[in-house]
C-alpha cells in the first residue's frame, strides 16, 4: 500500500512504514490504543489517521433514498430485475428476480425447480427491454447431469413462450452458446468453482446469472450430526462468497434447495413458513436462510385445492409458486404449469 498518496502528515506516513503496516484492513483491525503503541503517535494523530483512511475507503459512498428511487439507468437502478419470461410470474415477483442477492427456489423433487432455472438461463440472454440482461448464464450441477435435451426443447420453443418478443430478435440469440455448465459434486470443487472459474466469467461480462442446482446436495452426505459447526462454517463461507460475487457484478444468484420434513412445530417456526400445517421446510436450516435475500417455494398442488376454473384448460398438473420471504414482496403465491415451451403462470 502506497502510503504517500494519502493526505497524511509525513510523520504519520513514516510511522506507518516503520511499523510495517501494509493495508487499510490492518489499521482498522487494531484499536486506537494499539495503534498509539505501535506507531508511537499521540491519540489526536491516530484519530486523524483513522478518519483519513476511512474517508479514502468510503468517499462518495452516500446516496439518498430519493436518488435510488429516481435512478432509471439500467446499469444501476434497483428497478432492473431479471424477468422469468412469463407475465403472471413476473407480476408475483413485482418484475422478476432482483439483481443483487441470493434467491432460493426450494421444493420437493419434480416440483419444477430445474424447469424454472432453465427458463431463467434463457431469459437472461434477451435484451434489457424484454427483461433480460443481454448476457449468458452459468449452471452449476451438483448432483444430476445437466438436462441438455430439455434445454434444446425449450430453446426450440422460445418463440411460443415469448410471444412478446419479435421473432427476429429471438432468432439472433444463440441460446446454447451462452450457457456454461459446471459440475461440482463435492465442497472443494464447488469452492474452487465459485472463487476462480465463475469470477473469471463474471469479470469478462460473459455471464450475468449463476444457478446452483442444488446447494443442498453438496451437504447431504458429508456431514453427520456432530459436524454441524463445520457445516455451518461452509454454508456461511459459500453464502458470503456468492453474496460478494452478486454485489460486485450485479448478478443474480439462484440457488435451488431441497426440502426436508418438519418434525416439530419449533422447526416449522424456525423456517418461518407462513402456511400453517406445512409438512416440509427447506433444507440447510437457519444458517443458510440467513444468507438469502428472497426465498421461493414450489410445490405440486394437491388435487382438491385447485381453483375450479383451471381444470378445464390444463391437463398437466398445476403447481404453486409461493413467495416465502422477500424484503419487497408480501407472502403470496400463484399457480403455474410446466409445458413444452417452459414454465407458464396461470391467471
Amino acid at each position, binding site marked *: 500500500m502506497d502510503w504517500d498518496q494519502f493526505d497524511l502528515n509525513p510523520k504519520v506516513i513514516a510511522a506507518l512504514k516503520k511499523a510495517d503496516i501494509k493495508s*487499510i*484492513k490492518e489499521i*482498522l*483491525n487494531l*484499536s486506537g490504543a494499539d495503534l498509539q503503541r505501535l506507531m508511537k503517535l499521540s491519540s*489526536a494523530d491516530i484519530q486523524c489517521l483513522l*478518519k483519513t*483512511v*476511512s*474517508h479514502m*475507503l*468510503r468517499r462518495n*459512498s*452516500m*446516496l*439518498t*433514498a*430519493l436518488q*435510488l*428511487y429516481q435512478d432509471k439507468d439500467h446499469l444501476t437502478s*434497483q*428497478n432492473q430485475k431479471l424477468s422469468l419470461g412469463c407475465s403472471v410470474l413476473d407480476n408475483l415477483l413485482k418484475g422478476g428476480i432482483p439483481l*443483487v*442477492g441470493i434467491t432460493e427456489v426450494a421444493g420437493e423433487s419434480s416440483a419444477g425447480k430445474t424447469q424454472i432455472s432453465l427458463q431463467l438461463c434463457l431469459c437472461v440472454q434477451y435484451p434489457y427491454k424484454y427483461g433480460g440482461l443481454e448476457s449468458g448464464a452459468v449452471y452449476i450441477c451438483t448432483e444430476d447431469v445437466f438436462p441438455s435435451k430439455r434445454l434444446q426443447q425449450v430453446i426450440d420453443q422460445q418463440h411460443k413462450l415469448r410471444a412478446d418478443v419479435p421473432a427476429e430478435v429471438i432468432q439472433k440469440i444463440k441460446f446454447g452458446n451462452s450457457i456454461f455448465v459446471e459440475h461440482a459434486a463435492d465442497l472443494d470443487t464447488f469452492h474452487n468453482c465459485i472463487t476462480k472459474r465463475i469470477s473469471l466469467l463474471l469479470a469478462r461480462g460473459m455471464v450475468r446469472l449463476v444457478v446452483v442446482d442444488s446447494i443442498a446436495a453438496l451437504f447431504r452426505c458429508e456431514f453427520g450430526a456432530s459436524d*454441524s459447526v463445520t457445516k455451518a*462454517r461452509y454454508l*456461511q*463461507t459459500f*453464502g*458470503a462468497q456468492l*453474496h*460478494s460475487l*452478486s*454485489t460486485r457484478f450485479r448478478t443474480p444468484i439462484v440457488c435451488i434447495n431441497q426440502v426436508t420434513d418438519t418434525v416439530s*412445530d419449533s422447526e416449522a*417456526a*424456525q*423456517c*418461518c*413458513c*407462513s*402456511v*400453517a400445517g406445512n409438512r416440509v421446510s427447506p433444507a440447510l436450516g*437457519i*444458517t443458510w*436462510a*440467513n444468507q*438469502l*435475500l428472497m*426465498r421461493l417455494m414450489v410445490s405440486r398442488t394437491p388435487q382438491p385445492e385447485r*381453483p375450479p376454473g383451471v381444470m378445464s384448460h390444463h391437463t398437466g398438473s398445476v403447481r404453486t409458486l409461493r413467495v416465502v*420471504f422477500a*424484503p*419487497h414482496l*408480501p*407472502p*403470496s*403465491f*400463484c399457480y403455474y404449469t410446466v409445458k413444452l415451451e417452459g414454465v407458464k403462470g396461470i*391467471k
Partner: protein
Amino acid sequence: MQRDVGSLPLAPALRARLFTAGFQTVQELLETGPCGLSREIGISKEEALELLQVVRQECHGDVARTAAGSGASRKCTALELLEEEQAQGFIITFCSALDNILGGGVQLTKITEVCGAPGVGKTQLCMQLAVDVQIPECFGGVAGEAVFIDTEGSFIVDRVADIAAACVQHCHLIAEAHQEEDHLKALETFSVESILSHIYYFRCRDYIELLAQVYLLPDFLSEHSKVRLVVVDGIAFPFRHDFEDLSLRTRLLNGLAQQLIIIANDHKSAVVLTNQMTTRIGQSQSTLVPALGESWGHAATVRLIFHWDNSQRLATLYKSPSQKESTIPYHITSHGFRDVQPPAVTHSAEGAEMNPRKRPRREEEK
C-alpha cells in the same frame, strides 16, 4: 494565555532550551511562530510545529476547564436527567402495541437491537422507522432525518416509497380530522419525495467498510444535524464469516458498540441494529438465540426478538432498563409495520394479505 512555559508537558531538554532562549509565557511562544522558534532555540521545524501543537492543546484544555467550572466533566442531578429523558421524543413504529411495550416507541440516545429469523420483519421495521423519524412534530414525531447503513443489500427503495406514501396518507387523515393551521403547514413539505431525500443510504460490503463508515459517522452527523436515527441492517452479516480469530471479532464488535453509544448520546439519535439468530444446541433440544455471542448481548440497551408462532408474527421485549418483558403480535401490510387488526376488520384488504391460503381469490383479483 499567560501560562508559564515551565508548566507545559514537554521533554525536559526542550524546556531547558526555551528557558535559555528567554521564553517565559505561552503567549510569547505562540507569537513567535514555528520558523522563529526553530531558529531561536535550534530545533527542526517539525519539532517546533509539534511544540506549538502541544501548547495550543493545553490552552484549549484550560479554556474548557474554566468554562465548565469545577471539574472537567459535566455534573448534573438525577432530576435533571429524568426531565431530559421525559422531554425526549420517541420514534413511533405505527404498531401501537409495540410502541406501548417499548414505553412510547424507539428511544433516542439508546441502542435498540432487533433480532429474528429471516423473513420475520426486521428490515421492514427499519424501513418503517426511517420513515417515521421524519414525521413532523405537530403529528407527534421527532422531525428528524435517517441514516441507513445496509450490509446485506435488502433495502429495496420501492418498498420504502410505499411505506412513505402510507405514512403521508395517515398524516393527511389526521390533518383533515383536526383542521389545524400548523398541521396543514407541515404537510406542505411532507411528501414521499421529501421523505426519501432525507434517508441517507450507505452500502457496506464487508466489515472493513462498516468500520470505516462508523469512524466517519460523527463528522457526517455534525454536518447533518437533523439526523435522529441511525440504522445498521444487519450488524451480524459481515461479522459471521471470515473470522478465524473470534477474539478479534469480539474486540471489533465491542469497539463498534462503544462508538455507536457515543454517537447516540452526542447527537441525540436512536441507533437501531438488526441481528440474526443462530441455533444453540442444548442438552435435549436446540433453541434459537441471537447471533454474535454472549458478550454482544451487552451492547444494546434495548433488545427485541421477533419470532413466529404458527403464522402469527410476535415481538418480545427481551431486554430493557425500564420496561417489563412482554410479547405482542404484529402485522406487516402493504403499508408497513402495523398492529394486528381485531377479527371484525379482517375482511379489509389488509387482513387478506395475512392468510393468502384462506382467500386465494383476493390475490388474483388484485
